[in-house]
């Protein structure tokens, strides 16, 4: 500004005419790229936010599934033992009708477990049908499935947190990009080529930093 005042109107025109064209071109490129990066960053942040929400939802569903499975395993385990005890008591009493009624109340896997157990030679038979040696005993697999679901829920929750953190970081980058625009815009206010160049360089540096951060956080 002071330089323009010193040289008068003629000097001002001469100064503008001698402003390096590469400076304007660079500024245009920087601002253009900044605009694109701002757009892409905002889009990526939204996508990651969406993934985070999706994973939070899946995680909740997995926890529910795991809880259902755990409850089912608990219920099945209690039920199969209680029914089996009643069933054996009825058989020992010779009450075949009651034994048949209890048997009909058992679920398929319990019946298969009992059948397998009964089919074993006396010397090779575990103490009860609900032992690890009985391949038809389904409780371990149910408990393991519940645990698997819980582990899955945990990893989905972890992924959701990662996505959410990335999304927040990208939003921060988008905010930083306004510095690029501000510095680029300010360069138009100054007449001095040196001041312009400084502001354009600062604007370009801010853009570079944001670009690197975006790539890292992609």
């Amino acid at each position, binding site marked *: 500004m002071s330089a323009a005042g010193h040289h008068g109107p003629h000097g001002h025109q001469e100064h503008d005419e001698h402003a390096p*064209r590469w400076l304007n*071109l660079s500024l*245009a*490129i920087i601002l*253009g*790229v900044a605009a*694109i990066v701002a*757009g*892409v960053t905002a*889009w*990526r942040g939204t*996508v*990651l936010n969406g*993934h985070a929400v*999706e*994973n939070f939802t*899946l995680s909740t*569903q*997995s926890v*529910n*599934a795991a809880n*259902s*499975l755990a409850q*089912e395993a608990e219920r099945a385990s209690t039920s199969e033992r209680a029914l089996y005890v009643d069933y054996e008591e009825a058989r020992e009493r010779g009450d075949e009708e009651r034994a048949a009624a209890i048997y009909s109340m058992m679920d398929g896997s319990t019946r298969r477990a009992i059948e397998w157990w009964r089919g074993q030679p006396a*010397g*090779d*038979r*575990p*103490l009860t049908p609900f*032992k*690890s*040696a*009985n*391949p038809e005993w389904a*409780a*371990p*697999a*149910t*408990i*393991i*499935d519940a*645990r*698997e*679901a819980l*582990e*899955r*829920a945990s990893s*989905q929750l972890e*992924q959701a947190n990662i*996505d959410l953190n990335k999304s927040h970081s990208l939003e921060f980058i988008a905010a930083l990009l306004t510095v690029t625009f501000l510095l680029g815009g300010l360069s138009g206010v100054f007449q001095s080529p040196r001041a312009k160049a400084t502001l354009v360089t600062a604007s370009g540096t801010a853009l570079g930093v944001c670009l690197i951060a975006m790539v890292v956080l*992609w």
Partner: protein
Amino acid sequence: MVTIRALTGIVVALAGAGLVAAGCGSSPAGTATVRTSGADAAVLRDPTRTTCSGKIAVMAPYVDGGSTDSVQMNWARVALDTFNSKNGTSFQIEPVDVMDDVAAGVRGARRAIANPEVVGVVGPQTSVVTAAVGPLLDRAKLAYVSPSATRTDLGGGRLAGFYRVVANDSVQGPTLARFVATDLKARKVAIVENPEPYSRGLAGSVSRALEADGLPVIRISVPLRTPDYTDTIAQIPRDADVVVMPFLLTEDGQRFARQMEAAGRDPRLVGGDGLFVPTEFTKVGAYVSSYSPDLRKAPSGANIIRLYEAIFGDFSTFGGPAFTAMEVVATAALQTCSNGRATRAGVWKAVPDVEINDSLLGQRVSFDKNHELEGGRFFMYQVEPNGGYRALG
């Protein structure tokens, strides 16, 4: 004009790159296999995984109701059901009830061999049964991975299909000797052994290693199931500050320890892995070795222990290697699965190359050319007042 054209080109190129990036980024961040329908276990499994079926025999006790009954079977079962859940396979356990009864072992092995669905074996539990049934299983090309048969002469390729996921007794002897000489700083050692292969072999190995260190060693042999150790105790020199007792039977170890205490003798007692039965050998302060590490120290240990406890209640580290042995056989079966069926030939061929990096044993599991666990070790424990065994080192 040239500058404006160039600028336009640059902006268009950047916009294109942005769109390409947008396209690349539109895929989901992760793949979710959990469905929303809740309780049905089947929906939790990835339906795209290849299924494979077959039976894996487990030669371990599960009938007698003793203290270690079913422990290995339980661990093998947890391993198999976990493997099935993770891999979408439907392998089944084929139990063979056998511990140290050779005749029962032979009968069980013949039954497994006769069942064409059986593609591999976890076990046998004991060395004596392994030596007896090994040739039968070899002829049937059934690979067998033992979680606890430690006798040294089983390895070295003598039994073609035999592998183990624990160290052998040639490692146990020097481990015990090193512990006695270095950690306990013994001055004179007595070894009380049984006249049978396991005990005699281990006693010899410990004795040689101690004598090589310059320690005086006296060896005393006592029959199995000796009811009264008075004479034996009298033979132990008063200045022997460590007694090594590589007994085959836990009950013998417990009885000997009690009678030593009753006789007013209090040297430090060191047992072999035969005494590693927390419910039976309870001499507080005594030391025992085990081929099984403290499973709680493995990175994956806590999760699997919680799972085991959720299914079976009490946790016992004793059977942990059975989990790994089952993982080895199931992995070999899956790797060579053909048309949805595992095969004996496939398991036989694949077991030597199976590698498990994050095993429950806290070490990488793979086999050397002698079918031995690479980097196998023995571990020392001390009996605590609460009856638990505390891992040392």
